[in-house]
């Protein structure tokens, strides 16, 4: 990582004119945003607005068709040499993804592994950590998300909220410098949303840099530093969470927020 070369308040994530299309459908029409280290940024917007796609571009689950993204000062997906850009190969992309954690809407825990095995899979297989140490750290992370008593069960025995907390622990086990959340509470029963948001709030307070695609406007208002509103592939408005949510400047943002609050 080139982290040493970055000054303390340099942005951790920079997106410059990011474009993406699926066939003839333009999903991202030039996104510009920069996220300083330690910031929690919430992205809100109607479904189909491109917010999940943008998140997936950051850790290369989608390839961008134009523009560029930097994470930790490193160009995502390419290596620059003089005036040439070289596409990274499979192993180099995998290395870049290590430092970016991701939490999915549908949890995506590995069903054939127990909770502890899910968490140590990355550290042991990818980071080549010692298995016993990885287990100790996994159990510490499970304490943190309140699931230490579930350490040896298979994911199928867990509620949605518990699965999502394990998924967060799994992402944290890689010691990421950035965490991406793709609608982490949208697949949960209403009474389970709170336990996941509590873990995320705790993470935010610990100084983790987070980009959160969400419909939870309350979480955005209380926890995130800034909130961005996306619509039809464009970043319509971005600013301090309280002011964007309380007094949006753009008509489209106002419409969306009042529709959600109905």
């Amino acid at each position, binding site marked *: 990582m080139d982290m040493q070369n970055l000054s303390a308040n340099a942005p951790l994530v920079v997106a410059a004119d990011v474009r993406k299309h699926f066939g003839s459908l333009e999903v991202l029409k030039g996104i510009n945003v920069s996220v300083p280290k330690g910031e929690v940024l919430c992205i809100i917007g109607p479904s189909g607005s491109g917010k999940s796609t943008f998140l997936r571009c950051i850790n290369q689950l989608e390839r961008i068709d134009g523009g560029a993204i930097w994470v930790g000062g490193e160009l995502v997906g390419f290596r620059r040499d003089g005036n040439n850009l070289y596409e990274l190969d499979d192993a180099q992309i995998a290395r870049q993804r*290590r430092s970016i954690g991701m939490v*999915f809407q549908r949890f995506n825990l590995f069903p054939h592994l127990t909770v502890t095995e899910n968490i140590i899979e990355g550290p042991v297989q990818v980071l080549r950590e010692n298995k016993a140490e990885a287990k100790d750290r996994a159990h510490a992370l499970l304490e943190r998300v309140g699931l230490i008593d579930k350490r040896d069960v298979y994911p199928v025995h867990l509620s949605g909220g518990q699965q999502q907390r394990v998924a967060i622990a*799994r992402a944290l086990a890689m010691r990421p410098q950035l965490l991406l959340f793709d609608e982490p509470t949208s697949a949960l029963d209403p009474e389970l949303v709170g336990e996941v948001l509590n873990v995320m709030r705790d993470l935010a307070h610990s100084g983790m840099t987070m980009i959160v695609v969400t419909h939870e406007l309350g979480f955005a208002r209380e926890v995130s530093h800034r909130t961005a509103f996306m619509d039809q592939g464009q970043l319509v408005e971005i600013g301090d969470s309280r002011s964007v949510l309380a007094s949006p400047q753009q008509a489209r943002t106002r419409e969306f927020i009042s529709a959600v609050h109905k």
Partner: protein
Amino acid sequence: MTDTVYQISHLTLVPKRHYGRMIAAVLVLTVLAIVIHAFAVGQIEWNYVAEFLTVPVIMKGLVNTIVMAILAMVVGIVLGIVFAIMRLSDNPVLSMTALGYVWLFRAIPALLQLLLWFNLALVFPTIGIPGLFSVNTVDVMTPFVAALLGLGIQQGAFTAEVVRAGLLSVDRGQYEAAQTIGMTRLQMLRRIVMPQAMRVIVPPVGNEFIGMVKLTSLASVIQYAEILHSAQNIYYANSRVIELLIVAAIWYLVVVTILSLIQGRIEKYFSKGVVAAGNTK
């Protein structure tokens, strides 16, 4: 409403009569009795069946059958996994190669493939790397090698399709979760995708293994001494054709029955984390 109308505990329950089952049972038993009687009075010397069931030549044939079935299946599974992964690769050359392999070796009958391998010397009298080494094809292409190549390679074409179906059955989200923890493509396949695909792959592969045990009988035509070939060799000498065919049939039944039991065990192992919760999703 009076209370007595709703009292039924003093009544006697008369179970439903399953007349259909009774009639079916009678019919089946009758047919069975006729068949058994026919074989009992037919011209089969059952004492010869008993006598030849465990003679050394038959035992050796049985071992050769089992060895060939296992080795050909190993070749088939290895090729199947390799070509299934190639087929799903982004690399168009690899993917088209895999497609061509499956197309070719699935289309040509197994018996014909065995004969082609066995007669390879007619096309290439010697094989080897020019300038390094060279051997006479006849010396290398023994009945064993020809049978192994013929059966293993055609099995690989079928297994590739089974493995591909298994890989496609694993949820997209599993691939993505593996990628986001920094796994390379191979790590993802080995650690996350294959173990889950196995649940879908094992039942049909078990089925094909059973098919392979029987398919090895084709190798008798190229003089591989599997059980059918051994049985034939004996009846060429003593003319007890049916008795020796029954001996071979009994051994196929035994082997396939054992394999079916093992298959059940393996299926149970690979359903970890799924059946454990009592649902069959």
